[in-house]
């Protein structure tokens, strides 16, 4: 039994044409027992930056609270929003602070960077080591399944609606092969004009 597999769950982010998508499943459970089917693991930080967290649920909640707190202090002091790249750096530092007693959560950050709204995604391991990808990033209990799906279905420069279809198919197929992930999904598409959020109903098991 691994701590990262105690609650289950998965997060996926993908880059499109002037947009990014970030999604997660909705299951909250304790090993084999499902307790909630409404537990989204993606949280808004600003209108141009979303944070997804997988792993141990208590650490997801705590990390989210800490990061929102730090973000709010930044906004009060600097009187401006944190860009996604800067926010990612802050997440990495927050995780590394606990190098020898870490939070058991692996974040995924998706956002639109700067005045040109350039898509930005990144993911980290539980110690804060980031990986910069230009296509897709994911974390959770079914990462091999998501890698297989994304590697095949992803194409660069997808429009927001096509990106939504692609990420949804990748998610649902991957979740269906993992027993502790699923029970629906939530997908957020970030565009320069706004955020479109949709809930998916997949296999409810």
């Amino acid at each position, binding site marked *: 039994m691994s701590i990262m597999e105690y609650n289950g769950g998965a997060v996926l982010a993908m880059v499109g044409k002037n947009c990014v998508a970030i999604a997660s499943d909705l299951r909250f459970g304790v090993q084999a027992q499902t307790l909630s089917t409404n537990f989204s693991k993606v949280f808004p930080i600003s209108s141009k930056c979303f944070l997804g967290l997988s792993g141990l649920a208590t650490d997801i909640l705590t990390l989210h609270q800490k990061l929102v707190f730090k973000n709010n202090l930044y906004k009060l002091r600097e009187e401006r929003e944190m860009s996604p790249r800067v926010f990612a750096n802050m997440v990495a530092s927050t995780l590394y602070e606990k190098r020898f007693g870490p939070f058991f959560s692996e974040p995924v950050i998706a956002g639109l960077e700067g005045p040109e709204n350039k898509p930005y995604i990144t993911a980290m391991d539980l110690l804060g080591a980031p990986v910069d990808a230009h296509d897709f990033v994911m974390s959770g209990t079914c990462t*091999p*399944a998501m*890698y*297989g*799906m994304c*590697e*095949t*279905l992803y194409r660069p420069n997808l429009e927001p609606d096509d990106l939504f279809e692609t990420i*949804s*198919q990748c998610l*649902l*197929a*991957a979740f*269906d*092969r993992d027993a502790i992930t699923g029970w629906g999904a939530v997908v957020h598409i970030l565009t320069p004009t706004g955020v479109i959020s949709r809930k998916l109903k*997949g*296999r409810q098991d």
Partner: protein
Amino acid sequence: MNSELKLASVSDIKETPLSHRDFSPYTNNGGTTIAVAGKDFCIIGADTRMSDGYSINSRKVTKLCKLTDKCVLASSGMQADILQLQKTLKASLQMFEHNNGKQMSTPAIAQFLANQLYYRRFFPYYSFNVLGGIDEFGNGCCWSYDAVGSHERVRYTSSGTGQQLIQPLLDNQVGKTNQNVEKTLLSAQEAEDVVKDALTSAGERDIYTGDYADICRIDTTGIYFSEFELKFD
């Protein structure tokens, strides 16, 4: 006595016996296999990389084994066990042909393979098999196995180190799950394209999959082999 014989007493001798407790008879030589069965054909594909840990032993070792004119076996796992299993299977199938004057049908081979694997229930063949072919009526069929012979006839399957990457892709593209489209069977060309894409994607993200891939199409007219390149990294 001027020189005393200094013999060590028994209690002084401390010898630690050689310990082979960390010897494992198994190793995983990696690789991925896929099969998709259609109405009157079956496509089987496998990569050709043979690895040992982080090293590559060979870039071109086939995982496919032609058992009869209508049946091909693809195995991933430990190469030594795979070779032995394929050798004994081929020999048994030859004996069947001599005794009965005809080749074993694909469903019969499927059951036979399961029995052979279960004979070794307490020291298994480290092989993850996928059997594909056409049955006596010309219908495409494929079976997936675990190491000790548990098997199931399915429309599509995969096994090996790339299984976790590819299986959901097959669900989505062949089984057409989570889509509001008609769940029709694929044509031979469509199935072959899905298998190629799947092996290519597995080759990208799985370190044990790559180099070359063999694809085999089995239908009533015969067995057709083809090969294509994957990434060498």
